[in-house]
C-alpha cells in the first residue's frame, strides 16, 4: 500500500499576526496525511487559531508568513479541507433557516445547485443515526435549534462536502458530556469509514485523549511535544505536556482514601420534590426527588442541561418555591418561611457558579469579599479588611488587586474571587453549580484544587451540581443522577463509576474516562 495522500505539511512555518509582532507560530514543522487523526492542543494564545486560519487560507491581511506550508502534494489539485466549527460559534446567521444556510455552504464549496446540495446533505445523513424529521426541524433559525442538534447539523454539513480533511475548531465545545461523547464517536466512526484526515484544534486535553491519534502540543507558538497519547504520557515527554494532560479533571485522578463518613444530623432534606404539581391529571403522581445531605457531607447532583438541576437548586436555596414536595434546611421547612426569614437562612449558604456574570462588575475585589461579611457578621472594619486580604492570598489573588473592579478580572480570577467570597462568609452549605465551566484545563485544575482545599479546611456540606463525573468524584462522595427531572440512578460515586447500571450513566462516565474509548481510536489509527 502506498503512502496515503498528504493533506498538509508545514516546514519551519512562522506566522506573525502583524509584521514585527512576536511570532504567533514559530518554526513549526507538522504534517498530516489522509486517514490521520491529529489534535492540535494548546491554550488560548498558543497560536492554534492562527494555524487553523493559515490552513484554511484565511490569514488576516496584516499577517506575515515565513517557511513553507504545503497543502496536498503541492500540485494544483489540492485536498478539500472542510471547516467544522463548534455549535456555540457564530458561523451561522441567527435569524435565518439553519437548513438553508447549511445547504448554501455545501452548494458553494462543491459548486452544486441548491437541490443537489440538499441531496448531498441527505446522503451524508444516511450513515448517521438520526430521527426522520431531523432536516425538517433544521428549518428553524440556529438560535432555536438545540446545541446538540446544531453540532450534529454542522457535522453533517462537513461530511456532505466530501472532505479530504476536516479541520475542526473545538467542534465539541459547549456540548454536555454525553452529547460530546456521542458526537466524538460519530466523528471518529465516519473518519475511519471514509478515511479523511481529522485535524482537531482544541484547548481541552480530555477531548484530545478521547479522539486518540496524534497530539501536537502548542505552547506560545512552539510545538513543544508531538506524538500519540501513550508517547506523551511517558516520562520522556516535555514537562508542560504532563502539566497540561493532567490538568483537566478526569476520573480516578484524585483518589482520596478513607473518606470520613459523617454521622452528623442532616442539614438539608429534600422530600418528594417535583417540578409540577402532583395533581396535574395528565402526569399522574411522580415519585419526586428525595435526598438527605448531612452536615459536612457532600453530594453531587449529576445532570446535564435541561435535567431540572437549576430549578431544583433555586428551590433548595429558597429563591423560588417548590411546586411540589418539601425542602427542610436545618430542621426548618423553608416552604413556610417569609422572605426575610429565607434571606436570613441563606446567609448560611455559599454559592460558586460557572456563570461569570455572578459578580457585580462594578464592585471592587475587596468589596466583593467583604460584602457577605458585612451583611452576615458583626465585625469591626479592621478585622473585615484583614480577613479579606487573608482569603485573597489563600485563593491566589494578590493583596494589590483588592481595589480593582471585579469586572476587570479574568475568568479564572473571577472564579477565584467567588471562592474567596464563599470562604469569607463561612457557610454551612456550599452549592457548586458547574464550578469549572468556561475555564481552560489549567484553570480547571487550579479551581478544583481550591475547592478541595476548602472542603478539607472549612468542612461545609457540599452540593455539587455538574454534568461532569470527574468533578463530582473529586468533590463528592455520593451522587444522584438527574435526567429530565427524575433520578435515574443514585449511590456512591465510586460504585457508579465502577459498575454503572444505567446506559445514561455509562455514557456520562465514558465522557470523562482517562482512557480513549475502546476500539474506535485504534481503528482510526490503522487506516
Amino acid at each position: 500500500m502506498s503512502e496515503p495522500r498528504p493533506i498538509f505539511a508545514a516546514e519551519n512555518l512562522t506566522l506573525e499576526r502583524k509584521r514585527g509582532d512576536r511570532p504567533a507560530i514559530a518554526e513549526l514543522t507538522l504534517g498530516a496525511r489522509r486517514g490521520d487523526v491529529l489534535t492540535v492542543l494548546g491554550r488560548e494564545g498558543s497560536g492554534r487559531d492562527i494555524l487553523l486560519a493559515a490552513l484554511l487560507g484565511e490569514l488576516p491581511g496584516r499577517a506575515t508568513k515565513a517557511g513553507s506550508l504545503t497543502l496536498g502534494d503541492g500540485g494544483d489539485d489540492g485536498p478539500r479541507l472542510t471547516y467544522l466549527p463548534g455549535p456555540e460559534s457564530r458561523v451561522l446567521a441567527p435569524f435565518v433557516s439553519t437548513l438553508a444556510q447549511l445547504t448554501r455552504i455545501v452548494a458553494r464549496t462543491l459548486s452544486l445547485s441548491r437541490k443537489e446540495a440538499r441531496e448531498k446533505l441527505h446522503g451524508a445523513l444516511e450513515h448517521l443515526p438520526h430521527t426522520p424529521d431531523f432536516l425538517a426541524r433544521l428549518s428553524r433559525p440556529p438560535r432555536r435549534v438545540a446545541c446538540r442538534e446544531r453540532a450534529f447539523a454542522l457535522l453533517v454539513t462537513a461530511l456532505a462536502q466530501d472532505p479530504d480533511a476536516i479541520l475542526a475548531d473545538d467542534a465539541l465545545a459547549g456540548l454536555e458530556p454525553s452529547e460530546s461523547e456521542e458526537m466524538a464517536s460519530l466523528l471518529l466512526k465516519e473518519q475511519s469509514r471514509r478515511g479523511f484526515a481529522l485535524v482537531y484544534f482544541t484547548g481541552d486535553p480530555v477531548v484530545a485523549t478521547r479522539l486518540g491519534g496524534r497530539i501536537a502540543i502548542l505552547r506560545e507558538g512552539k510545538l513543544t511535544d508531538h506524538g500519540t497519547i501513550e508517547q506523551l504520557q511517558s516520562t520522556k515527554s516535555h514537562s508542560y505536556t504532563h502539566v497540561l494532560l493532567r490538568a483537566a479533571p478526569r476520573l480516578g485522578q484524585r483518589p482520596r482514601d478513607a473518606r470520613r463518613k459523617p454521622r452528623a444530623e442532616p442539614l438539608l432534606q429534600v422530600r418528594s420534590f417535583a417540578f409540577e404539581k402532583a395533581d396535574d391529571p395528565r402526569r399522574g403522581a411522580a415519585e419526586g426527588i428525595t435526598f438527605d445531605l448531612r452536615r459536612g457531607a457532600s453530594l453531587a447532583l449529576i445532570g446535564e442541561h435541561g435535567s431540572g438541576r437549576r430549578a431544583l437548586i433555586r428551590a433548595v436555596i429558597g429563591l423560588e418555591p417548590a411546586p411540589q414536595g418539601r425542602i427542610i434546611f436545618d430542621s426548618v421547612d423553608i416552604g413556610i418561611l417569609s422572605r426575610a426569614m429565607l434571606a436570613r437562612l441563606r446567609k448560611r449558604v455559599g454559592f460558586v457558579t460557572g456563570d461569570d456574570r455572578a459578580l457585580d462588575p462594578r464592585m471592587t475585589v475587596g468589596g466583593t469579599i467583604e460584602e457577605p461579611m458585612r451583611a452576615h457578621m458583626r465585625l469591626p472594619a479592621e478585622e473585615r479588611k484583614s480577613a479579606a486580604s487573608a482569603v485573597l492570598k489563600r485563593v491566589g489573588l494578590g493583596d494589590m488587586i483588592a481595589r480593582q473592579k471585579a469586572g476587570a478580572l479574568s475568568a479564572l480570577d473571577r472564579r477565584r474571587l467567588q471562592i474567596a467570597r464563599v470562604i469569607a462568609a463561612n457557610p454551612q452549605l456550599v452549592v457548586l453549580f458547574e464550578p469549572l465551566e468556561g475555564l481552560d484545563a489549567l484553570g480547571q485544575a487550579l479551581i478544583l484544587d481550591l475547592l478541595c482545599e476548602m472542603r478539607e479546611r472549612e468542612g461545609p456540606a457540599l452540593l455539587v451540581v455538574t454534568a461532569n463525573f470527574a468533578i463530582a468524584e473529586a468533590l463528592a462522595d455520593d451522587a444522584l443522577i438527574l435526567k429530565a427531572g427524575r433520578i435515574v440512578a443514585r449511590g456512591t460515586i465510586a460504585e457508579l463509576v465502577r459498575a454503572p447500571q444505567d446506559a445514561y450513566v455509562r455514557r456520562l462516565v465514558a465522557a470523562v474516562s482517562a482512557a480513549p474509548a475502546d476500539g474506535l481510536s485504534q481503528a482510526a489509527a490503522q487506516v
Partner: protein
Amino acid sequence: MSATDTAAARTNSSPLRIALGGLGLAGLGALGALVALEDIAAPYEAGMMRTGEALAPPLAPHAFGTDLLGRDIWSETVHGLAVTMADAVGALPIALAAGTFAGFLAAHMLRYSGPLLRAAANALIAVPALFLAVLFAALLGHQNAVVAAGLAVAPAAFARSYDRAHSLLASPHADFARATGLDRWSLFRRDLIFELRESIVAVAARALAAVVILLSTLSFFGFGAAPPARDLGLMIAAARGALPEAWWTAGFPLLALALFILAARLAAGLSEGERA
C-alpha cells in the same frame, strides 16, 4: 458582556460625547458663576426703570438695549436668570426625591405596590408635563410653582429609575447576591451607591433641563414667578407687545434661557429629540 452592552458603553464613552458633556457642564458652571456674581455683572438693580431711553436698540449706550420702561436688558436678563436658576435649583431636589429616588426605592422594596406605582407613573407620563405642572400649580397655589414643576417632572424620573433598578435586580449578579443571603437593604445600598457614583450628574442635569422648561413656561403663562421678581419666562411674556419693533427685548432673555437648557441637556448627555 453582551454586544448591546459594549455598544452602549462605546457610545457613552466616545470622545465626542465626553467633550459635549464637558461643554454642558462648563456652560452650567459659567451661567452659575454669572448668577453668583449677579451684583457685579449687572450694572443696574433688578427692575430699575429709566436707565436710559425706552426701547433703545443694542450696542451704545446699553450693550443689549433697553425695554419699554427703559430697563437695561442685560441687567434684567442676569437678574431673571438668577431667579430662574434659584427656582430650578429649588425644584430639582423635589424631582429627584419624588422621582428618581422614589423609583429606585419602590423597585427594591415594594414587591406588589411597586408595579402599581410604576403603572400610575406611566399614566401620568401620558399627560404632557406642562399640563401636570399647571394642574399642580393651580392646586398648590402660585407661590408653589417651584414645587409644582418639581412634581410634574417626577413621574418620568420615577419611571426611568424604577426601570433601571428593575433591570439591575434582574441581573445575574443580583440573583447571585440573593442566593448568598444578601437582604433587600444590602442590595439597595449597593445599587444606589453605584448608580449615584455613575450617573447622578447626568440624572440631575436631565431633571434640571426639564424643570427649567416647565418653570419658564409656567411663568410665561402667569402661573409662576410673581412680579416684581421677574424670571426669564416672565420677561419674555412682558416683552411680547414690543417684540415686532424691538426684538432685543425678548431675544436676549430667550437666548439666556436657551443657553441654560442647552447646557443642562448637554451635561445630561441627551441626544436630539430625546425628552428631558
